């Protein structure tokens, strides 16, 4: 059960007084926790941009660089959107990085039949692996951490197996490469696809019954069940969604790499989870924000770009990354986990 611990007997934040006002804020409605987190993240993003502009005025604040940042962000971004849905149900998907590799390879095996085959193959394979996760978790009652950890290993193994341990070259497939490097009205296709998924994800989460149900399952599974939400079906579906988006991410990545690499995506799931969490989606379920995830993804992408441009040694990069994550979380109101 992921709801708050039993209410304090009274005091700030406890029961409202006779007029329904929360004691302590004399009539002011508390701004929703999530909104504060989002504002804080915007602040972090702006701060990073300003620091970058100051430290590297010629090469950081250029439209070319922002395109590069957004393009790079699109792979993790697409994954993070799917992860937001999964985490909203109080679940987790540790397998997405490996599924990206496996889906890319799966697409690579059929790329000779055309770019559409690649895309279909990759997305389909990702969806399939995601549904295996969903089945284990929703119907097999396996804990999400364990089920997706197993899939992390299995998918990686499949990727290596199917590709015979070497990358599948996509140099010949202009169609697939378009996803990585092509443009639509001057904007890279990757960015457009990422934006589309983000917008679609937002609509799905906030303006459909399905989205409502997803968050309800994470917020209070029992209450959702009593209220008629088809809990198992919802849980099953979010993992499918995550897998499908992993397949799409594979297309974007392979297009840019011009190869389907079986070792791609290592540790990518941590970036996806990290972005969602610092964005405000709660690991305990019941609170999710696509805007926050998007901002979280941007924080990571801008950070990587800036630190690499500054040619900071790895050890410092790790420390700075950790500090920024901690900072982003601390600025937000302390939340109960």
């Amino acid at each position, binding site marked *: 059960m992921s709801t708050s611990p039993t209410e304090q007997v009274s005091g700030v934040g406890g029961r409202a007084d006779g007029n329904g006002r929360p004691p302590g804020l004399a009539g002011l409605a508390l701004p929703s926790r999530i909104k504060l987190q989002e504002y804080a993240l915007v602040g972090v993003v702006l701060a990073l941009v300003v620091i970058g502009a100051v430290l*590297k005025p010629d*090469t*950081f604040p*250029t439209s*070319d*660089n922002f395109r*590069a940042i957004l*393009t*790079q962000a699109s792979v993790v971004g697409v994954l993070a959107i799917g992860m937001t849905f999964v985490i909203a149900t109080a679940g987790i998907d540790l397998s997405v990085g490996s599924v990206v590799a496996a889906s890319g390879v799966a697409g690579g095996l059929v790329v000779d039949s055309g770019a559409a085959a690649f895309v279909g193959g990759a997305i389909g394979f990702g969806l399939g692996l995601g549904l295996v996760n969903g089945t284990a978790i929703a119907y097999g009652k396996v804990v999400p951490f364990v089920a997706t950890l197993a899939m992390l290993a299995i998918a*990686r193994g499949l990727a*290596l197996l199917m590709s015979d*341990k*070497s*990358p599948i*070259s996509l140099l010949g497939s202009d169609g697939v490469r378009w996803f*990585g*490097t092509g443009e639509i009205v001057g904007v890279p296709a990757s960015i457009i696809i990422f934006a589309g998924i983000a917008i679609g994800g937002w609509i799905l989460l906030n303006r459909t019954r399905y989205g409502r149900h997803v968050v309800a399952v994470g917020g209070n599974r029992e209450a959702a069940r009593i209220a008629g939400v088809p809990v198992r079906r919802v849980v099953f579906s979010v993992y499918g969604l995550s897998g499908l988006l992993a397949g799409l991410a594979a297309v974007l*990545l392979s297009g*840019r*790499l*011009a*190869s389907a*690499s*079986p*070792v*791609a*995506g*290592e540790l990518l799931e941590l970036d996806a989870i990290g972005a969602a969490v610092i964005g405000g989606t709660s690991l305990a379920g019941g609170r999710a924000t696509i805007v926050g995830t998007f901002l979280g993804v941007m924080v990571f992408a801008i950070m*990587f*770009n800036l630190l*690499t*441009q*500054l*040619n900071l*040694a*790895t*050890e410092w990069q790790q420390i700075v990354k950790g500090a920024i994550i901690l900072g982003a979380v601390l600025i937000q109101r302390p939340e109960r986990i």
Partner: protein
Amino acid sequence: MSFSRQLIAGVAALGLIAAACSDDDDGDSAGAGGETEADTGTESSESGETVTIAASVPPTDHGWLGQIAAKAQEAADQWDDVEFRLVEAADADSQASQIQTLINEEPDALVVLPYDGEQLTPVAEQAMEAGIPVINVDRLFASPDAARATILGDNYEIGVKAAEFFAEQLDCEGNVVEIQGIAGISVTQDRTQGFADTIEELCGNGINIVAQQPADFLPDLGLEVMEAILQANDDIDAVYTHDDDMAEGIVAAIENAGREDEMILTGAGGSCAAFDRIEAGGLYAATYLYSPTMAGSAVNMARLIAQGRGFADLVEPEVPSQIVVPPTEVSQDTVADLRDLCFE
């Protein structure tokens, strides 16, 4: 305890000690440590007594390492007096435990390519103390007591040769980007040091290393790191990379940005994909053989050591303790001749 029980316990203990001692003797006569009679002058290809060789390698999840495992297996297969077992680890910690297990199986020789030489030195020393000769491949252990013999490519020399290559091609003037492998391991440190020392020696301040970042031997990481570096530097003359597989991603980044005419790039390892690119000419200018065949050689060495023999062509009766394979440069001139040596 009653007297009779003590007696039985004492006898049992003595028995165990006796058994352990005799085991050690067996081990010695099989050639552990190579101190007993060595067979001089016999052809290495002649069959000797059957020996068991165990091999421990890091996860063979990409080209070069995959080939390591394959070449080791190939070498073992050609001998009918070798029983061979290869174990693949996930990371440094599990490799240490796996080697522990292998030690308990008491093979006649142990071939190890450690995930990290420093971290695995203690367990290698343990194997040596247990009388099992260790053959160290590629990534060096930290202590000479950790291995009976070592075979590795010359990582430092790769750096030297690449530096010489760039010094010549760029006329000692320009900006160089270095993309390393996994930060912190000896391979990386040597390749970086060799390059830095030689560039300084040959060109002084003429050549600047404007960026130096690791990409873990992974092509997708290479892609992302290079993308950022391309943004930061609008005038790059050369890219020195530590690995051909990883370089594929770096090349993709450069080509996506349309800047392949601006610079030249070198790799390391000797993948056939790199050979193709070198042959085609342009961006990918050279690579340095760091052949996974050294794993096969390591198995051969292990066999000879276990059987108490030396190399046939050498006068000395024992297998040398260190073999350094020089990194042959593969450039457009030489790529055709060296074709046979590339790995997938």
